[in-house]
């Protein structure tokens, strides 16, 4: 699938949320990005990282050590709050509901993955449209490529980790190959960009 849409000019919109998807090598990049965000970062960040099905929340604890934001592994129907990072629990898809809550599901795997990045991105695109920033990080499969197209079609801002900087380049490259990615950046650059776009006062 190739998607062409109008080029998204970052900063022209009031953003409401960030969604991030990663797989193999994604955790390191995610740590770099989240460590660049201050406690004043005013957007919720929803993360799908492919995990071993038996992960019991240790991923969320690991992420929490490297960021000033509160990291939550949500229960079903948790209210999405600004400045919080929500990590999809192992073995559950994480979706965004129109009432601003998180919905979890144990539906079948998508792209052999549960949680799946496509599932999060597609539901987030429906709710936040052009006010959404979506980021695809390092990984070894193509999960997230369809999701990034949905975000782009809804007018959102799409970023992929520069494949040259990724431990495993397949996933960001698959996203870029759809034509739906606005910018390919290294993790430090993504962190700086998000920090600027999501600062309180810019809202």
């Amino acid at each position, binding site marked *: 699938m190739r998607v062409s849409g109008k080029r998204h000019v970052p900063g022209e919109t009031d953003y409401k949320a960030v969604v991030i998807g990663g797989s193999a090598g994604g955790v390191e990049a995610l740590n770099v990005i989240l460590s660049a965000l201050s406690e004043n970062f005013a957007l919720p960040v929803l993360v799908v990282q492919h995990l071993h099905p038996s992960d019991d929340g240790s991923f969320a604890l690991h992420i929490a050590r490297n960021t000033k934001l509160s990291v939550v592994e*949500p*229960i*079903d*129907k948790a209210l999405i709050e600004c400045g919080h990072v929500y990590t999809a*629990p192992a073995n*559950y898809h994480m*979706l*965004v*509901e*129109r009432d601003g809550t998180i*919905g*979890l*599901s*144990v*539906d*079948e795997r998508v792209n052999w993955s549960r949680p799946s990045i496509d*599932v999060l991105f*597609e*539901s987030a695109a*429906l709710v936040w*449209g052009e006010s959404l920033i979506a980021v695809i990080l390092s990984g070894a499969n193509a999960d997230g490529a369809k999701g990034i197209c949905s975000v782009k079609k*809804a007018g959102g801002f799409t970023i992929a980790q520069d494949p040259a900087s990724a431990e495993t380049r397949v996933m960001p490259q698959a996203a870029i190959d759809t034509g739906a990615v606005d910018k390919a950046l290294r993790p430090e650059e993504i962190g700086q960009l998000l920090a600027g776009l999501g600062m309180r006062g810019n809202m």
Partner: protein
Amino acid sequence: MNNNKIESIEIDLLLEAVFRRYGYDFRSYARASIERRTRQFMSGAGCSSVSEMIPKVLHDKEFFSRLARYFSISVTEMFRDPFVYRAVREKVVPLLRTWPHFKIWHAGSATGEEVYSLAIVLKEEGVYDRATIYATDFNDDALERAREGIYEVSKMKEATRNYQQAGGKASFSEYLHARYDAVAMSGSLKERITFANHNLAVDEAFGEMHLVFSRNVLIYFNRELQNRVLELFTNSLVRGGFLCLGTKEDLRFTDVNNRYDVVDGKAKIYRKKSVP
């Protein structure tokens, strides 16, 4: 109005048509999941819009059946979340044991993997013969598969690992009979299980249960329907009876929260208070 909003109206109309024509109520399902399933079904059915599905649903029973089956697919596994079965074994069974006879309602039993898991725990704890187990689902295909209790061999490796982590006391293979590329659950596990159709969205309570086991069912419902179903569970339980939910489901922020004590916060096991 953008296309997303228009599609949302179409989905409302589709679910309304399903309810008024067939009595199946998906209007109170968690919206994001049901929308996703609608879109997936639509592309598989070769329709280009949700609206196109509405006359088909109204006039073609077979089309509706396929849609309803698609909406009600549930995915589960043997001893899913092994620590939950360990907690049932260690914290619930000792109290079930104090009743000469006890009843269990497994609501939303899907294809049956978890009801057999529960049966194995009761067997190994020596209380199976005192139990009556009702396994219910609103999907007749799933119920039929649960009743048969035949599963793919390929799933048994993980099932065995889960069984061991759940504190299994024997060898998991003792409960299985090999059949070509499948395994059948031992008939002795089925003796005390009654499989029945029950729709949580519209049907009434089951009486006098000592344990209601319902995992990853509530997450498919919106808050309103969740509260209806939790009320139903609460009314079905004896005082001091147990409620076991999915590990990402929680009674906090629900209408029945103050009617239960927490037995195990991680395994989401609750006990109905003796005094209402």
